[in-house]
């Protein structure tokens, strides 16, 4: 793989972390700042080799706080930028994820989830950070989070994450788990012209009239970058369309915070992706994501063999939550089964969207994801 200053094409047998790194390069990412942490380190290692081949920057910062700060700086200087980490580092990044939200910085943050809380189980998978992805920084805001369930998707969804970050000027999170990150699978790399790449929505307004936070109809403001002569200001303080601090105005606070939420939530129909399998006549629907969704697929197939009308709704997008899609399956299903590697996080969102339909939560913590049989048994219990 090394020594080729070219995007990968064709079939390759690689790990999820490497696929993610290659996806970033393909998406046009030319700045990576990070700090070593299991199980995300291989992303940094691979990019330390690949970035220079494309004239991009790799830097290992002094901690994760600095890493995300540098990523925001690089994005404002005009580069597509990314960092990658795991739970403890993701916690350290939270304050500056809020800064990226407030300053509407396109950037990608990869969190390879391991067992938590605290140092937890560094080499074991988990799905314990999915609510942190939504609520981790203080204040009210909305982000986008995606959950890959294969090595192929580590590549595809990394590109998608960069596209969404640029379209909506929002930090976009790739919430993968340790198994997906360390697993090796065959990946098909499409040729460059087959891949959709979204670049920055630059402002067309003159320097004199430019306002860095003046949104277009979709709530998203076009962006100027440092060094282009716009002389604009950006701040983590509540600000008006000019970017000037307005710390005493309830009107400005309300308008800004609502727009930051609306630009994601009101565009959810364009953002949300799910994969539906055998749901048409399903009486028992399984809702799952990440590595667990693969066991869930086997379980659903097994159930069908046994004459149980089961189906799978795989969440590709975690945030904004696929509310309509869950509500739709809840209308026809007798019960919904939600297996997760945590103590019950997305399951609460499913309960909220499912309304009257009973939701059975199947928790698993520790060394391995749910087995297909465990999920199958839960399906059978709910028939």
């Amino acid at each position: 793989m090394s020594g080729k200053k070219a995007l990968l094409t064709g079939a390759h047998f690689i790990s999820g972390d490497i696929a993610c790194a290659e996806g970033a390069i393909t998406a046009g990412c030319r700045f990576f700042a990070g700090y070593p942490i299991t199980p995300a380190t291989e992303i940094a290692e691979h990019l330390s080799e690949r970035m220079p081949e494309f004239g991009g920057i790799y830097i290992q910062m002094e901690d994760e706080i600095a890493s995300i700060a540098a990523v925001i700086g690089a994005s404002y200087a005009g580069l597509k930028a990314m960092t990658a980490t795991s739970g403890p580092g993701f916690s350290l990044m939270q304050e500056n994820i809020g800064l990226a939200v407030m300053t509407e910085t396109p950037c990608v943050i990869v969190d390879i989830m391991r067992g938590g809380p605290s140092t937890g189980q560094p080499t074991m998978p988990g799905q314990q950070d999915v609510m942190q992805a939504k609520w981790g920084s203080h204040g009210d805001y909305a982000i986008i989070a995606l959950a890959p369930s294969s090595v192929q998707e580590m590549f595809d969804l990394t590109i998608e994450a960069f596209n969404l970050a640029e379209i909506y000027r929002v930090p976009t999170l790739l919430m993968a788990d340790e198994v997906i990150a360390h697993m090796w699978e065959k990946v098909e790399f499409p040729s460059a012209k087959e891949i959709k790449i979204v670049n920055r929505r630059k402002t067309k307004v003159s320097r004199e009239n430019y306002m860095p936070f003046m949104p277009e109809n979709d709530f998203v403001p076009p962006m100027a970058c440092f060094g282009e002569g716009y002389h604009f200001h950006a701040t983590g303080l509540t600000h008006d369309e000019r970017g000037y601090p307005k710390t005493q105005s309830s009107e400005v606070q309300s308008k800004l915070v609502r727009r930051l939420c609306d630009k994601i939530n009101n565009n959810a129909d364009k953002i949300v992706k799910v994969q539906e399998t055998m749901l048409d006549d399903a009486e028992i629907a399984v809702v799952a994501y990440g590595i667990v969704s693969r066991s869930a697929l086997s379980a659903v197939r097994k159930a069908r063999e046994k004459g149980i009308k089961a189906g799978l709704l795989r969440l590709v997008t975690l945030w904004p939550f696929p509310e309509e899609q869950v509500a739709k399956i809840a209308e026809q299903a007798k019960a919904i089964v939600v297996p997760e590697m945590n103590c019950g996080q997305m399951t609460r969102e499913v309960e909220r969207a499912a309304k009257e339909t009973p939701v059975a939560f199947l928790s698993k913590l520790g060394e391995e994801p749910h087995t297909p049989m465990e999920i199958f048994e839960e399906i059978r219990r709910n028939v």
Partner: protein
Amino acid sequence: MVEELTHPFSKYLRSAMIPHIWCPGCGNGIVLNCFIHALDELQEDLDKLVVVSGIGCIGRTAGYVNTDSFHTTHGRAIAFATGVKLANPELDVVVISGDGDLFAIGGNHFIHAARRNIGIKVICANNFNYGMTGGQQGPTTPAEAYTTTTPYGNIEPSFNLVHLATASGATYVARWTTLHVRRLTQSIKRMMQKEGFCFIEVVSPCPEIFGRRNKMKTGLEMMEWFRRASVVENFSDPSKADITPERIVVGEFVNIEKISYEKLFHEKIAHINEQKVNW
């Protein structure tokens, strides 16, 4: 017809952001004034200048200068500026922030940016306390000084910032007080023309918050302390430059040439890709 008079330096300021938030007697305006004078004397291309600040009174500077500017979270100005400088080395990136922001919550970023020799320029207004939050003790508060959180006198030793910057690897290190406006302006000019990580400490009066608890109720009284105590000693030993009530050593401490991180990185990129083509 009366001709409208504009300030000769109005192009450097965002007039809509003025008046500034600073108290009477504060030194931050002098720091900003010297910075603008230096830019003007250098005929700095404002399109290529990015001013970054953290949180605190002086942190509002980024909003006042009419350049590309960014007001980061508390302590993270240097880490943000690192990303900017590496992403576009053509930009002149200046961090203007305070002693608490740069050396307490942001201390780790300072020493590592200096160690790496990232080509950013850091100006620290040292007012000996956390002014914006009402005057708490910080990493530069002098021994025995009174603050809102050291009501019995400060027992923590303070950082000697120029010694810290030198030991961390900065290529240019200087200290001035807000009394030394011409020397400070010249020093900023020299710094702006250097490659690598540069640091200027400006000892700055905070009479409303710090001085009044320490027998210096007015800006003038604080400036009188600076006049009485400061000694110009260029290239003296920074390890012996602790600030005391009796003595504030000012001057340039370090002015060396060293290749910057971003230059090394881009040389490396060129070298790697040359090798790969030759294979």
